[in-house]
C-alpha cells in the first residue's frame, strides 16, 4: 500500500508539473507583453521592470525561465489582478470557499438522493417505474445546464417568487467572513440575526445547488442501478437469501458496499464535467465563486486572474481525482491485486 501511495504522489507531482508547463507555454502566447502577462502590472516603472526581469529570469533561455516561473508561482506569487489591483492569491482565497461550498452541497445532495433512487430502480420489477426513472435520468443527463438554471430561476425565482436567484446572502445581513463558508459563518456570527441570516443563506443555496446536482445525480442513479442489477444476480446474494436474511439487510450489508465501487470510479471520471458545470452555474446565479471570477476575468482579459484561476481549479481537480482513485483502491481489494502485477 505504501508503494502504491508513493506512486500516486509521484503521479500528482508529475501531472502538476505538466500543468505548470502548459500554463507557462500558454502565458508566453498571450497577446500582451510578457511582463504584464506574468505579473499584471500594466505600466511598470524602470525599477519594477528590473525586478520582474530578475524574478522571472526573462533574459535567459526558456528552461531557466520556466524554473523561475515555477519558483515564483510555488512561493505563492500569482501576480496582481489588472482590474482590481489586488494580489491574485488574496482574491483566490476569497472566492475558493464559496465554490467549494456550492460544489460540496451539490455533490452531497446528488449522492444522498441518487444512491437510494438507484437501488429502488434496480429492485423494482415494475416496467413503468423502471422506464420512468430511466427517462428522467437520461433527460437530466442531456439537459444543457445553463438552460436548466435559467428555467429554474424563471419559474421559482421570478414567476413564483419563492427563492432568491443571485448571490449568497441578502445584502441586508452583514456577516464577518471567518471560514468563508457562508453556512458556517452565519451560524458562528454573534449578531442577533444570525439564525435568520442562516435561513437566508440556505434559501440562496437551494437553486444553484439543485441545478448543479442534476448531472451527478443522474450519473449516480444510472451507475447504481446497473451495478445493483448485476450484483443481485450473484451467487453470494443467493446464499444470503437462502440463509433467510431480510431483503433490507441483504441490500444494505451485502450488495450496496460492492455497488459503491463503480459509483466512486464514475464520480472521479465526472469531475471535469462537474467543474465546468459548476462554473456555468456560478455565472448564472451570480455566485461569488471561482468560476464567476474566472469568467469575468476572461471578459476583462485579466491575464493574471486567468492563470491563477485555471491553476487553482486544475490543481484541485488533479488532487481530487487522485484522492478518489486512492479511495477506490482502498475499498476495493480486487484492484489492489493489479498493483503488484508487472505493470
Amino acid at each position: 500500500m505504501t508503494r502504491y501511495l508513493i506512486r500516486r504522489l509521484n503521479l500528482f507531482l508529475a501531472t502538476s508539473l505538466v500543468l505548470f508547463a502548459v500554463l507557462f507555454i500558454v502565458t508566453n502566447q498571450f497577446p500582451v507583453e510578457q511582463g504584464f502577462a506574468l505579473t499584471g502590472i500594466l505600466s511598470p516603472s524602470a525599477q519594477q521592470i528590473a525586478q520582474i526581469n530578475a524574478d522571472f529570469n526573462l533574459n535567459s533561455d526558456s528552461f531557466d525561465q520556466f524554473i523561475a516561473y515555477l519558483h515564483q508561482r510555488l512561493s505563492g506569487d500569482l501576480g496582481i489582478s489588472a482590474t482590481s489591483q489586488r494580489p491574485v492569491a488574496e482574491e483566490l482565497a476569497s472566492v475558493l470557499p464559496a465554490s467549494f461550498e456550492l460544489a460540496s452541497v451539490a455533490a452531497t445532495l446528488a449522492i444522498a438522493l441518487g444512491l437510494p433512487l438507484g437501488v429502488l430502480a434496480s429492485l423494482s420489477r415494475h416496467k413503468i417505474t423502471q422506464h420512468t426513472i430511466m427517462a428522467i435520468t437520461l433527460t437530466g443527463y442531456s439537459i444543457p445546464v445553463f438552460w436548466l438554471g435559467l428555467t429554474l430561476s424563471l419559474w421559482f425565482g421570478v414567476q413564483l417568487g419563492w427563492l432568491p436567484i443571485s448571490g449568497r446572502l441578502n445584502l441586508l445581513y452583514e456577516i464577518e467572513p471567518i471560514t468563508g463558508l457562508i453556512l458556517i459563518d452565519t451560524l458562528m456570527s454573534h449578531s442577533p440575526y444570525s439564525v435568520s441570516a442562516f435561513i437566508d443563506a440556505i434559501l440562496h443555496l437551494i437553486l444553484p445547488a439543485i441545478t448543479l446536482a442534476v448531472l451527478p445525480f443522474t450519473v449516480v442513479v444510472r451507475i447504481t442501478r446497473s451495478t445493483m442489477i448485476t450484483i443481485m444476480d450473484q451467487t453470494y446474494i443467493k446464499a444470503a437469501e437462502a440463509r433467510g436474511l431480510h431483503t433490507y439487510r441483504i441490500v444494505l450489508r451485502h450488495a450496496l458496499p460492492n455497488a459503491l465501487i463503480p459509483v466512486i470510479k464514475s464520480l472521479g471520471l465526472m469531475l471535469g464535467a462537474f467543474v465546468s458545470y459548476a462554473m456555468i452555474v456560478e455565472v448564472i446565479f451570480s455566485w461569488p465563486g471561482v468560476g464567476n471570477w474566472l469568467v469575468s476575468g476572461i471578459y476583462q482579459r485579466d491575464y493574471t486572474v486567468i492563470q491563477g484561476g485555471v491553476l487553482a481549479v486544475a490543481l484541485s481537480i488533479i488532487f481530487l481525482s487522485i484522492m478518489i482513485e486512492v479511495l477506490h483502491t482502498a475499498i476495493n481489494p480486487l484492484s489492489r491485486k493489479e498493483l503488484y502485477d508487472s505493470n
Partner: protein
Amino acid sequence: MTQIKIYQGGEIPSLTRKIWHTFADNPFALAGLWAVVALLLLAVFGPLIAPYSAEYQDPRALLLAPSWDAAGTVEHFLGTDDLGRDIFSRLLHGAHLTFGVALAIVLTSLVIGFIIGSISGMMKGLKASILSHLLDALLSIPSLLMAILVVAVMGPGLDNVFWAVGIALTPQFVRATHQAIHEELQKEYVKAAKLDGANMIQIFWYVVMPNVWDTIIIQTTLGISAAILDIAALGFLNLGAQAPSPEWGAMVSQGVDNILTAPWTVTIPGGAILCSVLAINLVGDGLRSALSPINN
C-alpha cells in the same frame, strides 16, 4: 406434403445483424436513431428549407410569440426575437454550427486519440505510462477551462471552440482506447495468437481490435453529446460563437435579455439542444446494451 425442417435449421444471423436486431428491439433507441438522422439531414439541408435567412430582420414582427400562441402568426412558426429574426429559420441555420461542428470535433479527436491510444496501449512499461499520464494532465483541465485559455490566446470565435473542445476531448479517447487495448492484451486468446507467431501489427489489428471497436463506438456517442453541450455552453458564455451567429447556445444568450417578456427566445433554442443531446444519448444507450457481451 409438409417439409421436414429438422436438418435445414434457421439461418444464423451475422454479428452485425444480431446487434442491429437487439438495437431495433428497443423502441427508444430506434426513435433516437430517427432523430439523429433527421438532425443530420437538417445540418446539411437546413439552410435550404429555412423560410428566412439567419440575419433577416422583420421590423414589423419584434418579439412575436410562437404560432400556437394567440398573438403569434404562422409566418413566424416559432416566433421572433427582439430584432425580429425568425427563430425557426435561425434554428435551421444553426443546426450545422452546433451539431455539425460537434461531429467534426469528435471525428478529429477520435482519429488522433485512437492513434495515440493504440500506440500507448500496445506498448509496455515506462513509455506507455508517460504517454498516458501526460494526457491525464490534459484530462484534468475541463473543456471550459481549456476554452478560457484558448480564448485568452486567440480571442473568442467558433473556430477556437473547435480547438478548445477538441483538446479537451482527445484525452478521453486516448484513455478509452488505451484501457480497452490494455485489458484485451492480458487475455488468453492474445497469448494464443502470439504463440501462433503473429507479429505486433497482426495482433493489434486482427486479434485485439475487433474486441475494442464497441468501446470506441460508445465513447464516440458520449463524445458527441458532450461536444454539443460544450459548444452550446461556450456560446452561452460568449466565449464561442459571437452575437449575430445562430449557434444554439449563442441564441440562448441573446434571448436572456428578454427572458421575462419573451421566454420563448430562451426556451426554444434550449429545447432544441436538449432534444438533440437526448437523441444522441438514446442511440448511445441502445448501442451500449446491444453491444454489451452479456446480452449477446
